[in-house]
């Protein structure tokens, strides 16, 4: 099926074991193997390829073809730490080679300067522990550019007056505009706002071995069958495998990181498909398992030296979780938009990215995009106006009329880092392997909900200016489901309040590194993947430098 691939024995002490093959893990694998290291990537999910990516909504959504499996991996939820958590589906993430980047929407915004220095700029926020990053936008800029050119991001440099500085334009023009984008652009300009072509990690021009987007319409939640979506699967993983130094080992569920008496990690213990446990030995371990599974793995790896979880002397592993605030406003127009054709988002605005707390009365900021990201079954289940009957003639008629005439405005925004918002180990609930399940504890900071309401008002103004026949907003309510998994092993200079330093090395363990959504110090404005990938490129540079000067031993 695939060409002869590199295989290592578990007893081979490779240079790096990487846990997870998603947005960060894929890039880490590519960079470290290109830099001459021997790498094993352990991925809990299967190795699916383009041939496995179908348009079957039941298989993909109802049966979680590409995502975590609630039956095997139950989760629980509670609002605050004093409550007993109830079993319920609490999160979704990609569970296959390529991780969440396989099925994501592919919005690819850079963070702006403000996201790294917001504490300094706006001061402390009550009820949260807002902090500056130990790195700045300028530190990350070369890596943002690297992401755009290496994996393929389409967009138009300079189109948004709010964009941060960049060293190079995008490698390819934006994707075509959709009807939702034209409606959005015209209305936003009427209001004096600044719409621009959405930067997307989807090819507008072909690249070797990959087609440009064919606008099939099965994008968010689905894998791309022509390789146009710039997932780690379609990009970094393949480059890593070509080096001959990197083995991607699927169906390998890492549940413990081993440590020796000298305080060094020695490898990762995983279950194979038959649930046999193996230790893959390595000189260093890089965990890129996402903002839920990375802290869980550290907590599962508690040992004598770290009774509260590996590399958790600070006690903040799993805490300060940020999910990004925001919701959707739907609208119906007179004529067919046929927005089911194509990728999800073609226009966006950042006029409200940097709000002044003194003026608006809350901390935060965000972006609003024009999209249609639902496929037919999902649309019928959740896309009709409130009050539409759930079955019968009126249901059918509304469905038939609205499917082509509906668009969405998606408001994305900040979440504040609140200590009690976390992923932890549920004391009772176990997964199919008998290991403690993830417990989500989350109660939105009041400012996050105020921002959502503020952005909803802007969305409604825009839709009025656009002449929508009908519009309705999702009710503003506290989160109990996690998609963006950010901040749970955050970066910082102070080992008492952060888990990793600016090299992504854990403060506590010299040869243990973490890089994924868990590394983020602030939430950005709602689109974290670009920053996660830029961090991965940068972290790989730092780790390479440390390894080459013998600083991992």
């Amino acid at each position, binding site marked *: 099926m695939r060409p002869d691939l590199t295989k290592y024995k578990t007893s081979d002490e490779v240079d790096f074991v990487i846990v997870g093959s998603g947005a960060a893990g894929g890039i880490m694998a590519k960079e470290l193997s290109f830099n001459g290291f021997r790498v094993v990537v352990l991925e809990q999910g299967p190795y699916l390829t383009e041939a496995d990516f*179908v348009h079957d909504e039941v298989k993909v959504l109802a049966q979680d073809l590409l995502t975590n499996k609630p039956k095997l991996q139950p989760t629980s939820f509670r609002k605050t730490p004093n409550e007993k958590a109830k079993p319920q589906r609490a999160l979704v993430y990609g569970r296959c080679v390529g991780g969440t980047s396989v099925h994501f929407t592919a919005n690819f915004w850079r963070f702006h300067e403000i996201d790294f220095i917001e504490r300094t700029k706006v001061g402390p926020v009550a009820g949260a522990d807002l902090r500056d990053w130990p790195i700045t936008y300028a530190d990350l800029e070369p890596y943002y550019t690297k992401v755009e050119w290496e994996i393929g991001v389409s967009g138009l440099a300079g189109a948004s*007056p709010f964009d941060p500085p960049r060293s190079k334009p995008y490698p390819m023009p934006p994707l075509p505009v959709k009807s939702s984008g*034209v409606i959005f652009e015209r209305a936003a300009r009427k209001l004096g706002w600044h719409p621009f072509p959405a930067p997307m990690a989807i090819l507008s021009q072909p690249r070797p071995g990959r087609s440009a987007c*064919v606008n099939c319409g099965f994008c968010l939640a689905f894998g791309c069958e022509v390789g146009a979506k710039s997932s780690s699967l379609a990009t970094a993983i393949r480059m890593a495998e070509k080096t001959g130094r990197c083995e991607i080992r699927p169906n390998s569920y890492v549940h413990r990181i081993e440590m020796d008496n000298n305080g060094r990690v020695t490898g990762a213990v995983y279950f194979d498909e038959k649930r046999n446990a193996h230790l893959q030995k390595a000189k260093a371990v890089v965990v890129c398992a996402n903002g839920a599974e990375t802290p869980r793995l550290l907590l599962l790896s508690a040992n004598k030296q770290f009774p509260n979880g590996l590399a958790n002397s600070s006690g903040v592993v799993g805490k300060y979780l940020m999910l990004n605030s925001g919701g959707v406003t739907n609208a119906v127009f007179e004529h067919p938009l046929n927005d089911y054709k194509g990728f999800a988002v073609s226009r966006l605005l950042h006029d409200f990215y940097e709000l002044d707390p003194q003026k608006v009365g809350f901390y935060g900021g965000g972006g609003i995009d024009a999209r249609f990201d639902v496929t037919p079954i999902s649309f019928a*289940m959740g896309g009709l106006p409130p009050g539409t009957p759930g*079955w019968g003639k009126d249901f059918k008629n509304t469905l038939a009329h609205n499917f082509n005439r509906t668009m969405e405005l998606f408001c994305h925004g900040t979440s504040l880092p609140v200590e009690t918002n976390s992923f932890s180990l549920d004391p009772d609930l176990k997964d199919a392997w008998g290991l403690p399940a993830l417990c989500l504890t989350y109660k939105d900071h009041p400012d996050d909900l105020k921002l959502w309401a503020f952005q909803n008002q802007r969305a409604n103004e825009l839709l009025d200016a656009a002449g929508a026949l009908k519009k309705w907003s999702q009710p503003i309510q506290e989160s109990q489901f996690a998609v963006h998994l950010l901040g749970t092993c955050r970066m910082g200079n102070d080992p008492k309040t952060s888990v990793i330093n600016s090299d992504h090395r854990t403060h506590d363990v010299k040869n243990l590194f973490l890089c994924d959504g868990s590394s983020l110090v602030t939430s950005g404005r709602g689109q974290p993947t670009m920053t996660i990938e830029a961090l991965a490129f940068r972290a790989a540079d730092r780790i390479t430098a440390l390894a080459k000067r013998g600083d991992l031993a």
Partner: protein
Amino acid sequence: MIDNLSRRDFLSRGSAAVSAVWLSAHWPAMVAAAEHAHQAAKSTTPPKFQFFTPEEAAEIDALTARIIPSDETPGAREAGVVYFIDRALTTFAVDDQKTYREGLPALQSRVRELFPNLEKFSAATPDQQDQILHSLDEQTGPAGRHSRPNGASRSFFQALRVQTIQGFLIDPDSGGNRDGVGWKVIGRDREHMFQPPFGYYDKDYAGWQPNPPEEKAKA
């Protein structure tokens, strides 16, 4: 045959960008899968029921026909939804078997309770059928935007409603939505690739014009 051809056409055109190794490895399987779905959809003799008895199937068919009725345009019946549900209950939705095993007799009781002269749902008039369905339809919270299950158990009517919608609107190459009639009803073209302009509002788009320069931080 048209849809099959368009899929082949799509695959072969897309192949310019896909490696030869990948293509030679996957081509036979992809064609076989497409052929199979095509044959199943086109078959003139209806497949045998695996889960329902013929009597039960007639009841389910009548129920789905009130959830998505046939009028000027096709409904659940023309989309062969009962066959989709039957297959679902013996494959990916085996967990719902109990819901149906218990739901069908409960339906029968409800029919008799409301209309003592009636033996079964499928014998009722459309108005009577709607009354029976209303009595079963206990409202639940709104669905999420993407139809992932939340793990909560669901009633017979909820399961039936969800699976009727699935069978009506699923990608026609995936074992439901016979002849793509559900997509025709909602106006979704069946091609595997599309070119702009996509709709009414982008067809006369004049092209990107730069924004006027603006001072930062409006709000």
